[in-house]
């Protein structure tokens, strides 16, 4: 089918135009401001060079008091070298005598006179001794080069946000393109029946297609009616003469369709679903973004708050807000499905947005750890409610054909937020501070609340009954699921360790380590962003790889993927033992991304394989509900384990210990699942 080709090309062309022009606007802003930066900063650098020169001149001048001739001074070059090392913007320091250089340290630059500070040395006026400090003319360029990483982050984030804006502002246009593509595809497949019309684009094309489809459809109906009447008169005209017509009719019906065979009233459903999901997209993204903004600095912010009467170490204090948030999410989500369905998606989403807004604003005003914990718990509750409501929107507004695309869009929003939030949050936290960034999160949730109130459609009965949301992990279900030792081992050896290492590293240890190493929250944000980008790129690739292996070798490679993924994640922690400075956490994130992307999809797929019997008894949703809940408890445990190890043995040992623990889990998992695969169910022989 080629018709979607053209429309898809146009969509890609539009997106490419947006991206190129966005990049160009960023480049233009930076390029134009470079000169202003340079002209304003250079005099300040020169002032600093003068201060350094005065300090050196004062020190050398002390020798004059002891009548040491300037030619006999020793250690001047060492002194200059030490000073230059401390101030990288200084290109060269010279000791001049009558204008001639006697000692020079650094690289000679073709610096204009206005970039060199010359200061006389008190006590050596007779020798016309001077100190000349030249600043590096490329200093500002170097500053801009250092800023390049931040600019790349801004560019990447802008691109992703632009795509969200396209969906938000031009969702109807995107929906029209989908409608046109569907209509063209249907006709090229031989489906001739009326389809929904676009509102903004390609009306003439759609009408022309509709006209031709109706024309064929009417001819078919006429032929059918005529054949029916002739069949009724077959006794007069003879049935044999109609056989050819019936054969041709059968062939026609086989090749072409003249009525929409999909679920009757849902002809317009896809378009309505696209609009409903489009309306949910922006507020949900803003809600997630508000939370993700604080990922790169929350441990640092918490560690600066007084713990009050609680006898907790700083490291433990830093971990608690993440633990509280994750714990609330893990425990509340299974219960929220039924509640959200009962009170309605719209109402629950609006309630979540209001709660998140209050939680973020109050978090930014927290004066103690206890206050922050309360507001983070509220934030966790709001996040869980919004998550369930948004997921419910997808399930309620999609049918079996569109559900996968709907859920992919849902996961896409989460990933885009994870890419944008921590990186932008880090930059903002460095610039305006932790509290202001948290308050900005409150403002974003305020906008989300407004958009949800204005745009979210009223609830409609779900397209199909969704057992997923109404299946809380009750105690009985937990006990039935946990009675399966292989499921228990899958949870304890793979699901929980994978989450522990992810949250402990990415959201707790790495942000703290990076700041401890003298870097910034922005750098921590970039690291988390790197992980998210890797997940976006690698998870689909790995899932396809597993599917291809499964198809080619007719075996089940999932367990092997999970084991290798876990082992790679664990080995990631060992990178911290290497003396590479900030490169070490970079390697950790890189390996963690590879490891997690290898194991995530196969691990979820293994649940169905390991729990066949439990799924038969409890249903897929209930078993997966238990799996997700236990997995999320791993999220909550991660920062606690990280904090305890950090307290006991410092950063390197904490990273390495968690890594080794996960490698051990991977080894035991391999023994249980890779070398002893799931036993096949052998049908019982009837006695």
């Amino acid at each position, binding site marked *: 089918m080629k018709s979607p080709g*053209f429309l898809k090309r146009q969509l890609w062309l*539009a997106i490419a135009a947006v991206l190129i022009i966005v990049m160009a606007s960023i480049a233009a802003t930076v390029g134009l*401001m470079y000169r202003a930066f340079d002209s304003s900063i250079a005099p300040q650098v020169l*002032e600093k060079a003068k201060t350094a020169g005065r300090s050196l001149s004062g020190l050398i001048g002390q020798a004059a008091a002891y009548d040491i001739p300037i030619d006999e001074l020793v250690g001047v070059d060492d002194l200059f070298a030490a000073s230059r090392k401390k101030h990288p913007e200084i290109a060269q320091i010279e000791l001049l005598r009558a204008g001639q250089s006697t000692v020079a340290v650094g690289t000679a630059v073709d610096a204009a006179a206005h970039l060199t500070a010359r200061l006389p040395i008190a006590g050596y006026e007779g020798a016309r001794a001077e100190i000349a400090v030249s600043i590096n003319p490329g200093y500002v360029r170097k500053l801009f080069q250092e800023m390049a990483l931040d600019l790349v982050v801004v560019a990447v984030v802008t691109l992703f946000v632009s795509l969200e804006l396209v969906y938000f502002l031009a969702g109807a*246009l995107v929906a029209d393109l989908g409608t046109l593509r569907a209509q063209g595809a249907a006709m090229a497949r031989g489906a001739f029946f009326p389809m929904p019309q676009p509102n903004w684009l390609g009306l003439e094309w759609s009408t*022309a297609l509709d006209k031709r489809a109706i024309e064929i459809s009417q001819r078919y109906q006429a032929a059918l009616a005529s054949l029916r009447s002739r069949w009724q008169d077959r006794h007069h005209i003879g049935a044999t003469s109609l056989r050819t017509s019936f054969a041709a009719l059968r062939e026609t019906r086989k090749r072409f369709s003249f009525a929409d065979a999909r679920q009757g009233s849902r002809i317009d459903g896809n378009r309505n679903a696209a609009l409903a999901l489009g309306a949910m997209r922006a507020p949900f993204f803003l809600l997630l973004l508000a939370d993700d903004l604080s990922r790169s600095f929350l441990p640092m912010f918490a560690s600066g708050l007084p713990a009050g009467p609680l006898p907790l170490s700083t490291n433990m204090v830093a971990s608690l807000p993440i633990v509280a948030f994750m714990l609330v999410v893990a425990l509340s989500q299974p219960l929220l499905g039924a509640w959200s369905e009962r009170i309605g998606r719209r109402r629950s989403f609006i309630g979540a947005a209001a709660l998140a807004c209050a939680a973020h604003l109050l978090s930014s005003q927290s004066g103690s750890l206890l206050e922050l914990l309360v507001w983070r718990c509220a934030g966790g509750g709001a996040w869980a409610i919004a998550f369930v409501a948004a997921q419910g929107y997808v399930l309620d507004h999609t049918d079996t054909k569109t559900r996968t695309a709907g859920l992919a869009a849902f996961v896409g929003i989460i990933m885009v937020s994870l890419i944008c939030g921590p990186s932008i949050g880090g930059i903002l936290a460095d610039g305006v501070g932790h509290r202001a960034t948290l308050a900005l999160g409150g403002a974003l949730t305020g906008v989300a609340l407004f958009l949800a109130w204005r745009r979210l459609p009223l609830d409609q009965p779900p397209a199909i009954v969704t057992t997923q949301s109404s299946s809380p992990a009750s105690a009985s279900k937990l006990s039935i699921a946990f009675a399966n030792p292989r499921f228990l081992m899958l949870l304890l050896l793979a699901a929980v360790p994978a989450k522990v290492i992810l949250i402990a590293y990415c959201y707790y240890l790495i942000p703290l380590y990076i700041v401890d190493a003298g870097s910034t929250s922005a750098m921590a944000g970039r690291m988390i962003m790197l992980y998210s980008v890797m997940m976006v790129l690698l998870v689909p690739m790995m899932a396809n790889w597993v599917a291809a292996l499964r198809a080619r070798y007719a075996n089940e490679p999932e367990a092997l993927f999970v084991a290798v993924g876990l082992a790679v994640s664990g080995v990631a922690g060992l990178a911290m033992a290497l003396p590479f400075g900030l490169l070490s956490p970079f390697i950790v994130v890189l390996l963690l991304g590879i490891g997690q992307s290898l194991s995530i999809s196969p691990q979820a797929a293994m649940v169905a394989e390991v729990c066949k019997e439990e799924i038969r008894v409890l249903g897929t949703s209930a078993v997966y509900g238990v799996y997700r809940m236990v997995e999320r408890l791993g999220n909550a445990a991660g920062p606690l384990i990280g904090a305890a190890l950090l307290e006991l043995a410092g950063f390197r040992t904490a990273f390495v210990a968690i890594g080794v623990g996960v490698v051990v889990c991977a080894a035991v998992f391999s023994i249980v699942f890779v070398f002893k695969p799931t036993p096949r169910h052998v049908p019982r022989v009837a006695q």
Partner: protein
Amino acid sequence: MNPLSRKLFWLAFWVIGFAVFMTGLLLYFKYQSVFTGLQRDRVMMVANEIDDIAEKNLSLGQDFWEIATLQDVIERRREADKIFLGIEVVGRDGKIAYSTDLARVGSSLPPAWLSEFALVRPNNRLSPSPDEAILASAIRNSFNQVAGYAVIRYGRQLEHEAMAQFTRRLTVTCGGVFLVFTLLLWGVLACIRNRTENILKRAAHTISGDAHRDPAMAGEVAAIEAQLTAAHRQLDAVNAGQAA
């Protein structure tokens, strides 16, 4: 402006607005951090020089309160750079031992400042008022105990002026870039939309019987026409059977 053009304009407006705003914000933060960092380094260099002198004297066994060269050094440094509002050397208890303002000698610094000095980190500074900042460097004796602090008060007027000037320039630049690129993106999107609409119109004419084919959608149109022709032929066959 028709509603679709308006939609495309707002899309361009917000997309470019976000990109330029974020870039501007980043440049602002960078300038602020570089500028204040340079000033802080400049002040810290002098503070370190003073505490070096004091530490050398202490290591030679001189009493903290009787280091003869310090008064002269701090006065010379104060005069050398107009950014300095005052330089003081204080004891551990905050009592001023040497000051460029002789009237302050013997008085004490606020206790809150001392606790801040004790916590001082490389990039920390105290700002008791918007126009004044304070940096301190600890003076340590031979036993590595804090004997006092070299405290420098410096003005932030220059910083405010520079930030204001930079912000003005940044605002104008960002405004200009925003305007130009918003219009550019809008224009490009409108062109794509017009081209798409025109090609779809021509394809609609072809489907409706016009002989002219647009190469951009020739494949799509051909596939649909092939199905239409086949369907007609098939229905002809049905009718032919009845006629027979």
